[in-house]
């Protein structure tokens, strides 16, 4: 399958690979997908006192598009408020990475990961 240059770049030089302490109250963790489906994404956001995402990290088990989608999202969410981050859609990710139709589920997964992380943060800090 021919990947776009952007996918290959993110795949070969993934941004922000790593983890934060998931028990830290300022850390939001979202894990989505399933091993049997071939992709699992873990997205973690570090949120400051003003509700702004100061840092983001990811780990992904999945194809090149899944890795690129999560890598891209960690770049995009930095500096955004939770509401702004929640507004990121899979279509934006698909367009940025020029994902082929069979890989759109990767961008959906990345969007879901952001939402799951924000959910986690809200329930932790409720």
């Amino acid at each position, binding site marked *: 399958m021919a990947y776009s240059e952007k996918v290959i770049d993110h795949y070969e030089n993934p941004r922000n*690979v790593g983890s934060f302490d998931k028990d830290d109250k300022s850390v939001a963790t979202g894990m989505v997908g399933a*091993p049997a489906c*071939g992709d*699992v*994404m873990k997205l973690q956001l570090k949120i400051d006192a003003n509700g702004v995402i100061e840092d983001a990290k990811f780990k*992904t088990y999945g194809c090149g598009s899944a*890795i690129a989608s999560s890598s891209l999202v960690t770049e995009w969410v930095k500096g955004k408020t939770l509401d702004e981050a929640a507004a990121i859609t899979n279509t934006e990710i698909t367009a940025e990475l020029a994902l082929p139709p*069979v890989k759109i*589920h990767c961008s959906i997964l990345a969007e879901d990961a952001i939402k799951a992380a924000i959910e986690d943060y809200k329930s932790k800090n409720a």
Partner: protein
Amino acid sequence: MKLPIYLDYSATTPVDPRVAALMMKYLTMDGEFGNPASRSHRFGWQAEEAVDVAREQVAELINADPREIVFTSGATESNNLAIKGAAHFYGKKGKHIITAKTEHKAVLDTCRQLEREGYEVTYLEPGTDGIVTPQQLKEALREDTIVVSLMHVNNEIGVIQDIAAFGELCRANKVVLHVDAAQSAGKVDIDVQTMKVDLISFSAHKVYGPKGIGALYVSRKPRIRLEAQMHGGGHERGMRSGTLATHQIVAMGEAFRIAKEEMAEENKRFLKLRTRLLDGVSGMEEVYVNGSMDSRIAGNINISFNYVEGESLVMALKDLAVSSGSACTSASLEPSYVLRAIGRDDELAHSSIRFSIGRFTTEEEIDYAIKIICENIGKLRDMSPLWDMYKEGIDINSIEWSHH
């Protein structure tokens, strides 16, 4: 060393230069370009003679009579001709066919077609080592069984089946035995006399011959009858009409001649290279070999790298031309049906890679392959949340995943 490194000899092989050189002599005006069916002039006679020599060479590799060799366009056509041809011819005796779940699509899809025509097919399930036992076949045989089709060597996992034992059973029960030997010719000894096989499919391009040519062995003693699938001028004793492709047939003959001569030495070399490759990557954790190690061709190794997704693995190994058990790279998103049939879970099936070693593989290439495999598996595992969980001792099967 040229990149990417070709380690996909089970998919196809380059034509041996000796074969290509010979093939060239059967194309142009100054060569033997005649139609082997032309009886009235020298051009035809010489082409016919060249075909006869090639037929003899193919027959010799499997200890058959040259009159038992029918040239086809490849193993897919041979499989179709054998299974449909025998099922149709013997259809009055019964409608039951036996095959296995790990067969090549050319066999499985042919059987599906026969099911649509009203035949009944039993699909044997091999053990976790990929082997079908004679006992399984014995239990599946029925009064109305007419054809058994089982492969000699599996294309994905390289395991070798006990064809002679199947032959005994089928001969005793007067059932036609067809064997797909596309992956075994030139790699494993085949003797049609001792193995008691009735029909065998061959392909030239897996044995350093050209694509587009293959053969079907059709036993004369006992005499096996087939209904032709291709009608026309009655070539190949009526079993397969169509002008014989002299240059391709000559090439196949030469490729099989070389295979017979060099097989034993080659296998020793392949085994060394394969052992080197396996030893080189076995230092990593969670590395699994798929299929039997005891009954396996020397040039094949199929390995699953747990907690690494198959498609990203293939991307990471872009300097290696290998096949992935994860069909993500093709149209469907299904993992290998062969690995599933031998009981591998989806994750391991997705993360499998088939390495196949061949005539032009060097030790230097294997060493380079080991290096990039180890580096990239490490990199991908560092990126994998599943690897973290494994390291923390969390059983990923205990987690409720949201399937999407």
